[in-house]
Each structure stands twice: as structure tokens, then as C-alpha cells.
């Protein structure tokens, strides 16, 4: 079945754009009305690549170069956002079931049935009933099938998570380093404040507040850049793979996590550096 779907729809030389009205004449003038050609639906990708439009006639066959049926393109479909189809360059053609069975010589066979139950609670009972009487096939929940076929994406997801962890660790180190430097730059200011009589607690509070503001601002900017990045990523990959699938998504949860982590690290680093500075004698901070 996959083979059939993956095969090209062979184009007869005069097919594209042809709209030959059915009909012809028998000797003696009686009108013969040949049966109307069957209709198919093709996907956007095939339509674009083969320059097909609704109404075009093509020849559809099960074997490359073999005899087939002349059919009419009745519709152009858009694929759903199915991750499993992302890297595949296949074309999709939809036919009426009986037409495909006849074309492929399949006879009265199908690959699977998709069953919708009347209510969610009935699914288990239907599953059991079917499997009890099934002969030569089995019933599965769609969710279980999805788990089995989604291993590729589980792997990609784990990979992304690992990369994410690495970049978070890296970002944390950078953040700590830079905030430490930032606070150290202020050592003379701190010395002056302490010499003036400002308490350690007040100095620490003001530095931590500064670190908090820097972290918040940085996190906001970072969120904006990240969001712009997802737009770019989606635009790029949706074009490359010709799919409406969303590749990158910024969710409120992700934003919250990123902001919380940045702020926690920033404030933590600021606090550590500030406490270290106020512990030193003010004159030592001046370098004396």
C-alpha cells in the first residue's frame, strides 16, 4: 500500500490541463457515454511539484510504467502536522477504497480499520470484544500505537533535552561569572559607602536589587530573542520540510522556567559577590 502511495502518478502527455468532455459517437449517430473517470485527491506537495490543478487528468497505476486508470484530480489536500512525515519526501494520493483495492489487485482487503467508539468509556470493552473474536488481526488503542511509533521523536526529544541541560549549565556559569565581575567592578563604590557609615545590610540589599533588575531585564530580553528565534526556526523548517508542523514553541511554562532560573542565578551570584565585598575592610577595597 505504501509502495502504491509512494509511486508517481504517471502523467500522460496530454493530461495536464486537459478537459476532454466525455462522449463520442457510434457509427449511426448514437451517443456513447463512457463512464466518468474516478476522482482522486493529491497533496499540495505533489500538486506543486508536478504542476497539477483540480480538474487535471492523470494516469494512476500500481506499477511503474504499467497500465493504469485515467483519473481526475478532484481535490488538493494539505497534510496534517504529523511529525512522522516530516523528513519524508513522499507524495500522498487519496483514492476511494474500492478503487485502490481494484487498482492494486488487493481484492477485498484493507491494512487496518480505524474505529471510533460512541463514548470514551466504551473503548476498553470494544477492544476486548474485537480481540476475542478476531481472526488474523488484532485491535489496539490508538494511544498505544502512537507510543510505539513515536520512538524517533522520543529520541529527538531526549536529545533536545540533553542539549537543553548543557546550555542551561553553560548559561548558569556565564551568568555567575558576569554578575560576579559586575559586582566586583563596584568595589570602590562599596568602599565609599561603607566609609560613609552605610551598613553592610544596606549595601548588600542595594547590590542584590541591582542584580535582580539586571536579571529581570536580561530575562525579558532573552525571552524576546527566544520567541523571535522560534518564529525564525518555524519559518525555516516549515519551508524546508513543507509541513505546517510547529518545530519550536515558547510556552508560558518555558518562559516561567527560564525567567525564574535566570533571576535565581543572577540574584544568587549578586548576593554571593556582595557579601564577599562587604566582609572586606573598606580600605582594602580601595586597594590599600
Amino acid at each position, binding site marked *: 500500500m505504501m*509502495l502504491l502511495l509512494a509511486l508517481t502518478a504517471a502523467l500522460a502527455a496530454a493530461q495536464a490541463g486537459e478537459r476532454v468532455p466525455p462522449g463520442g459517437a457510434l457509427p449511426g449517430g448514437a451517443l456513447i457515454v463512457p463512464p466518468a473517470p474516478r476522482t482522486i485527491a493529491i497533496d499540495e506537495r505533489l500538486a506543486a511539484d508536478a504542476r497539477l490543478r483540480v480538474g487535471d487528468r492523470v494516469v494512476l497505476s500500481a506499477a*511503474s510504467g504499467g497500465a493504469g486508470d485515467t483519473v481526475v484530480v478532484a481535490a488538493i489536500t494539505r497534510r496534517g502536522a504529523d511529525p512522522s512525515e516530516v523528513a519524508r519526501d513522499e507524495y500522498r494520493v487519496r483514492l476511494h477504497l474500492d478503487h485502490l483495492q481494484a487498482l492494486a489487485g488487493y481484492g477485498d482487503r484493507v491494512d487496518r480499520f480505524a474505529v471510533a467508539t460512541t463514548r470514551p468509556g466504551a473503548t476498553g470493552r470494544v477492544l476486548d470484544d474485537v480481540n476475542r473474536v478476531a481472526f488474523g488481526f488484532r485491535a489496539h488503542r490508538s494511544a498505544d500505537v502512537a507510543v510505539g511509533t513515536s*520512538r524517533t521523536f522520543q529520541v529527538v526529544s*531526549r536529545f533536545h533535552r540533553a*542539549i537543553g541541560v548543557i546550555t542551561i549549565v553553560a548559561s548558569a556559569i556565564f551568568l555567575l*561569572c558576569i554578575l560576579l*565581575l559586575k559586582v566586583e567592578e563596584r568595589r570602590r563604590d562599596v568602599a565609599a559607602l561603607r566609609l560613609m557609615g552605610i551598613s553592610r545590610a544596606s549595601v548588600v540589599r542595594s547590590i542584590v536589587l541591582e542584580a535582580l533588575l539586571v536579571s529581570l531585564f536580561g530575562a525579558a530580553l532573552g525571552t524576546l530573542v527566544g520567541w523571535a528565534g522560534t518564529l525564525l526556526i518555524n519559518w525555516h523548517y516549515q519551508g*524546508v520540510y513543507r509541513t505546517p508542523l510547529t518545530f519550536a514553541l515558547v510556552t508560558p511554562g518555558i518562559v516561567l522556567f527560564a525567567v525564574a532560573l535566570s533571576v535565581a542565578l543572577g540574584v544568587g551570584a549578586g548576593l554571593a559577590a556582595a557579601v564577599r565585598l562587604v566582609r572586606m575592610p573598606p580600605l582594602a577595597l580601595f586597594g590599600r
Partner: protein
Amino acid sequence: MRAALASAALQRHPVRTLLAVLGVAVSAALLLDMVMLASGMRESFRQFLLIQGFQLRVSPKGTLPFDSEATIERAGWALATLRAHPDVVTVSPILGAQTHTLRGDSAHTAFAVGVDPGVQGDYELLRGANASAPDRVVANEAYLRLTGRRLGDTLDVVVGFDPQFRSYTGRRALVLVGVGRFYYTATNQAVLAVPLATLQAMSGAARADRVSLFMAKVRAGASVEAVRAWIERTIPKVTAISTETAVAQVEERLGYFRQLAFILGAISLVVGFLLVTTLVTVSVNERVGEIAVMRAMGVSRAHVVQQIVLEGFAISLAGAVLGLLLGLGTARYLNAILSDFPGLPATFDFFLFQPGAAWRSLGLLVLSGILAGIYPSWRASSLPIATTLRREAVA
């Protein structure tokens, strides 16, 4: 003296220096991993295809090897034709089929390759003997673990098995004579190798005189492309691809990882650069007084810059060395994750260490560390001496 000054400056703030080195190390590790990922897939796949030296693969038209269940018809004639070409040294025919090993009520699934043991390039024999007779079979370790069988056991193997009807197209008793490491099958996939004629017979009429794939070895010095083109002209309904083309096609499919590698690698480089710039800038700003005094003493601008740039270089170098070790470790971890891709051959690596690429990328990071120090140090050494000293005295 400049090196001594640079070293002393770094030791002055050990925590700061350590954090900076760590930061650069993580950048370096990520950069190295991305370089390994970008070039690794291509190189690993090429090495993997050339394991036994077969440069050409002939598969049913429009498909990649074992991409579908399609087969090449008139296999005997095709094989003879291929072998007759003066530039073709070896041709290995392969038929793939799903098998079941029956034992009581249980039926273990295994992928079987029907091969000509004398010329096959699908596995290396680890122990035992090759499947040189019609009723012999070689299995991999995964098969042995799955079935609990051992060398010398007789296996009840069927092809085209329907578990509910317990029907099959072919059934044989095969003696397990050898254990092999199969190059092209997925990790943990149970695999059997049987003589081609045996598997064809077991697969029934539908597979008589058919193979899934030919692998061809071309004579040294001959044009692989010429042979490839000749094959497609001569043998109907096949696609012949060279190793390079196969590599390019797989690379296209895995293009996402290459792009990810490039983007993350570039970001690592930029972040490493920014970190060293920031560190050097702050460090220099703290020492403008010292720098002005050095200039007053008669130390040239260039030498001041050199000393400070040395600090950036030292941090980057230390970070790069640490990053190399870290990167190799994380690459193994990431490779283990990606190796879990369903259907991926066990011998395929996403991350491959290539010394040339690794040294170049780490060298680039160290260079960026050097460049990061140039601007802040030049700026500091160009400050007017008298004004700076006055300002520092007031401060």
C-alpha cells in the same frame, strides 16, 4: 616578565579566573560536540558504508537499500551480468526477510539476510564457522540473548509466519554454526545470516530469483561513477548509488542535525568570546592605574596589550583543554541518546572525533579569546597617562 605578570594577574582573583575557565570550557565542549556532530554523521556513514570496501549499492528503482520491501527480479542474471564487468571485482547479493524462530509456543522475530558467505559484506564472524552449507545459519549476540540459543543448536526457522494461523511460506531446521557482528542492522536487533538460496526457497515463489540488494566492489583505479552508470543502463528497474551519493542522501535526511550543530557551534563561539571580553575588560578597568604607571615607566603600548592579551589567551587555552575532555564525555552521552533511533545501524555514530576538525574549532575558540583581549587592552593602554594617574590618585 609579561608572562609572569599575566599569570600573576590571573591568580589575583582565583574564583573569577576559575569561573571564566569553566565558562570557556563549557563553550569549548559544546563547540567540539557540534563539530563532531556536523562532520561525524557524514564521516561515520561513509566509514560504515565502506566497512568491507563495497563502493556501490544496487537496489530496486527509486529506493534506498532496504528502504522498502521491493526486490530486484532476475537476480541470477543480474548477478552474472554484474560480475562480467571488467571493473567489478566482487558482487554480494543480499535478500532480506522477516523470520520467526519457533520453540514450543513461542516465536522469536529476527531479521534474516540471505547472502553468499564467500563474498558477503554484511557481517564479520566473531566465533564459530560461516553459513557455508544450505542448512547453516550465523546469528548475532542479540539473537542469542533473545532466544537463549547457543552455538551448535538446531533452530526451527520460518519465513512469512502468521502467528494466528501458524502458517508460513517456508520452514527449515538450521544449525547455528557461527556468531557474527552485523554492520548494517540496528543495535539490539536480532539478525540471522543464511545462504541466499535457502532464504529464497523459504520465502516462496514470490521471492524466487529475487534479491533486495547487490553490493559491488569496483577495481582499484577504475571509475566508480562509470560502473554505476553502466549498471543503471544495463540492468532494468534498479537504482545504483555510490557511497558518496548515499552519504549525501542520508546527510540530507539528517540535515536538521547539521544545521543544529552549526547554530549551536556558532553560539558557543560567540558566548566564549563575550565571556573573555567581559573578563578582560573588567580586569583591565580595575588596573588602569597600574597600566598608566607601566606606561609612565616606559613600557610600550604594544607590550601592555601583549601582557593583557596573554591573560585572555591563558583562560581560553585552559578552557579549551578542559573543554576537550568535557566535550568527549558529553559526546559519548549524546551519541548514546541518538543511537537509540529505531532502525539505526549499530555501527553508525552521530558524533565522530576527527582530530583535524576538533583542533581547528578549538583553535578558533582560543583565537577568539586572544582577539577578545585586544580591544579593551588597547583602549586602556591608550588612556592619557597624566590624567589617568591623577584620576586614580583622587579615587
